C-alpha cells in the first residue's frame, strides 16, 4: 500500500506508528514536501491480514492482537497454547523467555545460545526454552551455551 500527497504529487513517507488499540493499528505518513500528515487506521480484519503476512510495519512487529511486539517477545501464533502445554507452566498462558521460565532455579543463556534460539521458528521457542532449561538443570548447568545445546542434540538422539 502506498500513499500519495495529491497537493504535491509526492509519495508520502512513513512517519511513525501510533499506539495500537483494540486490534487497530495507527500508521502515520508525511509528505516530504509540504509535511502534510495522514494516519492510516486499520480495522481488526486489516490488522489480522497484516499480522498473517508475518511482516513488520514501520519497523515494529505487528502481533495478532494488534499490538507492536516488544523486542525478543514471540509473535508465535501458537505461543499461548504451546506455553500452556509446557509441563512447568501453571497459568496456561505465560510464555517462557530465555532465563525466565517458571522455576526456582534460574538458568541463564549465553549470547550465542540466544542467537540460536532466535533462528528457530517462533512457535517452538517456548517449548525449546522450557525443555532445554530443564535439560540444563538435570545436567547441573546454571547456563545454556552452545556446547550444552550440542549435548542436548546428542542426548535426544537427533
Amino acid at each position, binding site marked *: *500500500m*502506498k*500513499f*500519495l500527497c*495529491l497537493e504535491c504529487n509526492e*509519495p*508520502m*513517507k*512513513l512517519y511513525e506508528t501510533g499506539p495500537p488499540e*483494540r*486490534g487497530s493499528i495507527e500508521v502515520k*505518513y508525511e509528505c516530504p514536501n509540504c509535511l502534510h500528515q495522514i494516519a492510516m487506521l486499520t480495522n*481488526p*480484519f486489516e*490488522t*489480522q*491480514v497484516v*499480522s*498473517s*503476512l*508475518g*511482516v*513488520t*510495519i*514501520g*519497523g515494529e512487529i505487528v*502481533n*495478532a*492482537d*494488534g499490538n507492536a511486539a516488544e523486542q525478543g517477545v514471540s509473535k508465535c*501464533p*501458537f505461543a*499461548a*497454547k*504451546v506455553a500452556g*502445554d509446557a509441563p512447568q507452566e501453571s497459568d496456561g498462558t505465560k510464555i517462557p523467555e530465555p532465563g525466565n521460565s517458571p522455576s526456582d532455579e534460574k538458568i541463564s543463556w549465553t549470547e550465542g*545460545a540466544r542467537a*540460536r*534460539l532466535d*533462528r*528457530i*521458528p*517462533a*512457535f*517452538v*521457542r517456548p*517449548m*525449546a526454552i*522450557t*525443555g*532445554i532449561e*530443564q*535439560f540444563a538443570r538435570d545436567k547441573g548447568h546454571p547456563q545454556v551455551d*552452545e556446547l550444552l*545445546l550440542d549435548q*542436548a*542434540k546428542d542426548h*535426544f*538422539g*537427533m
Partner: protein
Amino acid sequence: MGTPTRTYYDIVGDGGSDVLGQVERQRGRIDESLSGVRHQIAVASGKGGVGKSTLSRHLASAMARHGWETAILDADLNGPTQARLGSVGSAPPVPGPRGLVLPRSRDGVGVLSLGAYIPESSSVEFESVAKGESYTWRATREFTLMSEILAGVEWGTLDVLVFDLPPGAERTVQFAEFLGPEVAFVLVTLPSALASGVVARSVTALDTTRNRLLGHVLNMDGYACAGCGEVRPLFPSGETTPLDTERLGSIPFDPQLAQLSDRGGSLDEMPESAAAQAIDNLARKLMNILESA
C-alpha cells in the same frame, strides 16, 4: 495542464515498511535453508483419506533404506500425522547453529510435524483480533507459518525432502505456487469412482502450474489377505475416471501396515508383505525418475 497524478507503479517503495522486501527476504532465507536439498517431492491428492500421509512416511523410509538422506515436512497443519507415524515428539525442540535441529525417526528419516509440538487433543489455533472471520486470513497465516518452518529448520544435506500435503485440489495448486516449480508432485488416489473423479481435478489443476507431475499412485488397490496371501478387491469394480498421468505403482491395503503405522513402526517389520514390496518398488522407481530428470 498540470502534472499527471502519479500511479502506484510510478512510486518506488511503500514509504518505509518495505513489506514486499520483507516477503522477498523471507523467500531468500527459505532458499538458503533448502540449498542442500537435491530433490523435493510433494505427495498430494484432491481427496482426503486416500493414505497420503502413510504413503509419504513409508516412501521416505524406503528411500532412506536405499541410502538416501531423507526428510518429511508435514504440511498438513490442521491434521498433522507425521509425528505419530515417525514416532517423534518426546524430545524438546533443540536450537542448532542454523535453525531447529530436525527430529529423526528410528529409521533415520528427518520429521518436521506440528504434531510433535501440539497434543493430538488440541486443535491448531491462531491468535486473532478478527474473531469468527478466520476464512478471511487463515490461509495466509498458514503459509506464513510454513515459510517460517522452511526457513527456520536445519534441513542440512538431503537427497529428498518429501512434503505431505493436506487434501484438496485448490490446496494442491496453492502449495505448488508456494513451494515453487522445483517441487515435483505425486498424486494419490483409490480404485473408486469417487476418488478418481476428485483426483482427476487435481491433475487438471496442476496443469496450470509450472510444477512437474511425476504420476499417481493407486493406493488400497485390493486387500492383502493375511490368511491366504491373496490380494482381493477392496472396492467394488466399476468405472473410474481415467487419470491423464502415469501410474507409478499400486499399493494393496494391509491391516498390518495400518497397525504398525499407528504406532510409528516401519516396513522393516513386514518386509515380505505385498504392501511393503509395492512401496519399495515405488521408492526405487521415483528415485530413478528423480535422478534421470
